[in-house]
């Protein structure tokens, strides 16, 4: 009985951590390159909405996912243009985009489906990896997830590898650490930073689609509900390193899962505290209470030659 509960907890932690994991990985790349992409929240919401609508319209969740990704690209282009080319304040523009997207998706959703609709949307299929899926107790609870979760894990691992072992990763790192050095070694800081923001957009789109067509198979107004900001906190918590950011996101995921697990286990904690938990953790992280922070030195600094 206890073991079963633990398995459910682990499974739902992983599932709830996944959108954070994806968007935080994208955000990490963007911040490493020197662009604080505050619009993760808006990008995720755009992805979630477009993914759901695409899936609904075409009847194919895979096509929906593709539409979700494509829909986020204009948002990423806008963020990249504002923060790199126009050198606007990255925090202000990011929050502006978030507010705009919240309004736009809500309006569009009501226009398309009507405010009362809770239509079931075709979602992505589930898959159990061989052997792992056969483990007693854990097999079904932990490893019977949408295939997008496994794909996401592979992408995160691949990103970590690229950042560590390739010239591209080196250039991204240097663009946020010392952009003048990048420029003088003949690379384009602009291109690296545009690329990094587009990658953040791609990952946020995946995260958004995971929410709407991967996890619960529906779209609700403002369904990201601050997950984008949690991803930002995850990057800070993870001290701008992929491994630690993954740990931070899993931790946030577990904190969220605890909301549902503690009452089921009969532990009496006020519900408000439980809901607060992941955000409280994020606040502590951002407050710098968890060790020394080492942000990329040129984070939020637009590059001028």
């Amino acid at each position, binding site marked *: 009985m206890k073991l079963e509960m633990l398995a459910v907890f682990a499974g739902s932690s992983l599932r709830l951590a996944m959108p954070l994991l994806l968007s935080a990985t994208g955000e990490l790349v963007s911040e490493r390159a020197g662009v604080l992409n505050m619009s993760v929240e808006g990008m995720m919401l755009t992805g979630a909405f477009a993914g759901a609508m695409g899936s609904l319209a075409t009847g194919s969740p895979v096509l929906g996912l593709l539409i979700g990704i494509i829909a986020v690209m204009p948002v990423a282009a806008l963020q990249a243009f504002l923060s790199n080319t126009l050198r606007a304040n990255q925090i202000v523009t990011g929050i502006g985009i978030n507010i705009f997207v919240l309004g736009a998706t809500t309006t569009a959703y009501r226009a398309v489906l009507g405010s009362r609709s809770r239509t079931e949307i075709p979602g992505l299929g589930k898959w159990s990896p061989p052997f792992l899926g056969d483990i007693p107790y854990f097999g079904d609870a932990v490893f019977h997830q949408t295939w997008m979760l496994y794909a996401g894990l592979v992408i995160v691992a691949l990103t970590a590898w690229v950042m560590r*072992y390739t010239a591209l990763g080196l250039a991204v790192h240097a663009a946020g650490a010392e952009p003048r050095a990048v420029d003088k070694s003949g690379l384009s800081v602009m291109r690296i930073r545009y690329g990094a923001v587009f990658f953040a957009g791609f990952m946020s789109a995946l995260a958004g689609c995971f929410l709407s067509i991967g996890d619960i198979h529906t779209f609700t107004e403002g369904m990201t509900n601050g997950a984008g900001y949690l991803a930002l906190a995850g990057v800070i918590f993870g001290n701008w390193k992929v491994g630690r950011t993954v740990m931070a996101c899993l931790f946030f995921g577990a904190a969220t899962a605890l909301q549902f697990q503690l009452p089921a286990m009969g532990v009496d904690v006020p519900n408000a505290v439980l809901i607060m938990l992941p955000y409280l953790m994020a606040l502590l992280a951002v407050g710098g209470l968890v060790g020394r922070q080492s942000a990329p030195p040129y984070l939020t600094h637009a590059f001028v030659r």
Partner: protein
Amino acid sequence: MQLAEHPLEAGAAAVMEPPPLLSLRGMGKRFGSLQALDGVSVEIASGEIHCLLGENGAGKSTLCNLVFGVYQPDAGVMQFGGREYRPSGPADALTQGIAMVHQHFSLVPDLSVVDNLLLGQARGILKRGECAQRVRTLSENYGLALDPFARIRDLSVGERQRVEIVKCLMREPRLLVLDEPTAVLLPIEIEGLLQVCQRVAAQGCGVVLVTHKLAEIKKIAHRVTVLRGGRVVATSNDPANEIDLLVRAMIQRDLEGLDASASAMFGAPATDAPEQDREIGHRIEDEALQVNGLTVRDAEGVARLDNFTLIVNRGEIVGIAGVEGNGQSELAAVLAGMLPATDGRFFVAGKNMTGKSPQEVTAAGVGVVPEDRHAVACITGMSLAENLFLNRLDRFKRWGLLDRKALRESARALMQEFDVRAAGPDLSFGSLSGGNQQKAVLGRELTTEGLVLLLAAQPTRGLDVGAVEAVYGQIRKACERGVGVLLISSELDELISVADRIVVLYRGRIMGHCVAHASERERIGAMMAGHVE
């Protein structure tokens, strides 16, 4: 040597037998209202070491940056290797075979040497091991010792420069541009750098070397082009024997008219500097500053300043020598009240000022010329007049409001006294040249009420000869008035000619005391490099 009547002719006159590697004709570049370059023509041949000489703001760095593609020219034609050359960015310059060592390092501090070398040169998966091997080979060939896997932030300034040079050499350039590469190096490191330049040139690479230091020109330059106010004012094919003429062209004044300090720096090596017959601890016996066992530890517990003890008498100039980053910044910050000391005390005119705020330190009669002028000494967005009286604007209060007229008049007087050249006191401080900014800061600090001690950290950094002369003239004047001066500088020649005695700092410790005399130059140089007597 030709003194140019018209800029274009100067370039045309220097006809070379083989076609030049790089030829610049009538280059012009304007930044806002400043004409940084105006009709500059220069030719550089393969295998030639060509020095660019000029005061600050003469346009040397701008010229280099045009060649490297950092800026695009407004006028003029460049040819490289006989073909038209129009770079739109550093990438173009690099593909053509032009490499540059920049005045300010362009390294990523939290990456390793190898990663910095691979940045922009590698594609796909990084082959760190292979690169490290190449570094070792190059290191051996050129005598540039480097640990390929060390992190840049852990390297000394000299080692970082070596990384910059290796980075250039790895590209096997046809033209190597070095923009004031020796400004931050130890004497022995300068020697090594010049040798590398010679070896590179011997292999047929063209070398452009920007420098302030005439000793270096004398040693290695094949040809020299002198810039002043963005124009070519002289060229020389035999620089070693025409140094005096070059200097005259550079500053449009005779060397004799210059302060001894400037001539020591620019002309003859320091050993020819005039004898100094001032003695230690002369005149007034009163102490301006007494420092007792001052220690500063950083966040990691490393001692940046270790048990520093020193007395500065009134009317005495004590120089702190040392390569930058050996505790000078910490010493200056503690004495200015900007950094708490971990241990130890210091007294100004007998009063314990340890741990006091900058305001209290100023009130005790300490004038501070900080190392980082822009961050600490001035507010560039405010006017010159406001900056001149930044710490005592109270004085111009009338009915609780600022009396701008009185402020302006006082500012004019101060500008006159300290030769701050600006169109008017209302000009934005940021629009002044570095030299005038520093003269203004110095003027403000030297007129501090009840001045006992002047703390000057790197006061001549980035200044041209004229400004250096003015700064030291004022410091000496203050000294004659009975002010004690603690002068921190990484320019050894300046210290030798200005200070009464010199204390050498190395890794936060005092390595030794010397009389400021040219004959001590080598001993001080050795101590700066950490050699114990």
